[in-house]
């Protein structure tokens, strides 16, 4: 990873804050495609004292194995000018950390929508997600309709991290289909998942009219983001062109 742009603006006249921008290029030397990055930046003044920083993540990038691509490291980060001896961003130094992640994705299966209150549908199998995590089936219990006449469900799925790696995001996604296989609704839930731990997800749907979901199904998918590589860099900024 190389920081290719790190700039600072003039202090804002009203608030006295200095805006910083930072971007970089990542060379993905691994055998996996990068589909998620987490970044963190510490901003230091001339005494190497922390005066700002931020953490970010990007799930909308895709850098194929052995390819290179841009990454955004810092956007709209501001630090008050009085935290620097010179009163400008020239005294700043940034320490940047980045971790890249690959994505493991599985189609878990399809559940019938329970027809009436008290009925329950289940996916009765444990499904491996890329050999690093396991989805422990899924249950959907039909509850009493709400006072507004909407169908209500209690849905539960659990994913356990069977590996020694930190999973930055474990996610289950549900798509509710009607009897003609047209999508009516969707929902998802995600969390981070430390090594050898589990999370229980309780996704929900809103405003479902019982007539619309009759004989419908729920398609379930799951994914986890597993670390590939970590990077560290230091950079000093230059004045922006603006």
């Amino acid at each position, binding site marked *: 990873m190389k920081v290719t742009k790190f700039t600072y603006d003039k202090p804002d006249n009203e608030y006295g804050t200095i805006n910083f921008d930072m971007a970089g*290029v990542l060379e993905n030397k691994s055998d996996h495609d990068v589909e998620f990055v987490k970044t963190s930046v510490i901003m230091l003044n001339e005494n190497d004292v922390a005066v700002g920083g931020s953490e970010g993540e990007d799930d909308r990038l895709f850098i194929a194995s052995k390819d290179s691509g841009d990454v955004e490291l810092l956007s709209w980060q501001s630090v008050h000018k009085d935290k620097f001896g010179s009163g400008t961003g020239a005294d700043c130094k940034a320490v940047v950390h980045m971790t890249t992640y690959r994505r493991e994705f599985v189609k878990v299966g399809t559940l019938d929508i329970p027809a009436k209150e008290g009925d329950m549908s289940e996916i009765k199998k444990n499904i491996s997600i890329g050999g690093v995590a396991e989805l422990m089936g899924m249950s959907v219990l039909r509850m009493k309709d709400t006072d507004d006449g909407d169908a209500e469900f209690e849905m539960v799925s659990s994913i356990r991290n069977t590996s020694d790696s930190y999973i930055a995001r474990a996610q289950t996604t549900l798509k509710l289909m009607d009897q003609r296989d047209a999508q009516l609704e*969707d929902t998802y839930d995600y969390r981070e998942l430390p090594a050898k731990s589990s999370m229980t997800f309780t996704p929900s749907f809103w405003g479902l009219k019982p007539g619309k979901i009759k004989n419908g199904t729920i398609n379930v998918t799951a994914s986890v983001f597993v670390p590939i590589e970590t990077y560290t860099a230091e950079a000093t900024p230059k004045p922006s062109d603006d």
Partner: protein
Amino acid sequence: MLVKTDTSLDLIKKHLKESYSLGCNFTNRNSPYKPSRIDSLELKDNLTVRELEHSLSAMFNVEVKLSNSDGYSIPPEYTLLQAKDDVFELDENHNFNTKIQALKTISSSSSYSDIDWVKRVFMQTLRDAQVADHFQQIEEMLDMVFQDNEKFMQADLDEIADALKNKKTALKI
């Protein structure tokens, strides 16, 4: 919808889902609550995702993350109207375009000195080139890097130009 400091987070979630097909994830902060200067926020079409996340975060002392229906985050500069029905899909030229953009970034950076890396990116880009337009973009980029960077030597240019010529010949372009 007008959000006030006593509005339930569930109501906000429901409104964003029903009006904009957006998921909304709230994560509690560990730091003590500090009263915000923002006491209300109207969720309207031209509100940007950045403004919404920042304002709700300050009002409720939570981390806020908006996502599309597949759970992908929404670019912060999008308005709620633009974010509605957002889909993240990679087009067929994604890998090629990503590397061309990376080459532009590297070549416009005055701090880089890793010519080997630049050459590798050129070769990676060449690997994905399939049509005349791709080759034209690479040739233009090659000329630009050669002119703008004194560390990129004639031998470097020749090496990539040869590889480019060979691939064009193989593809009969």
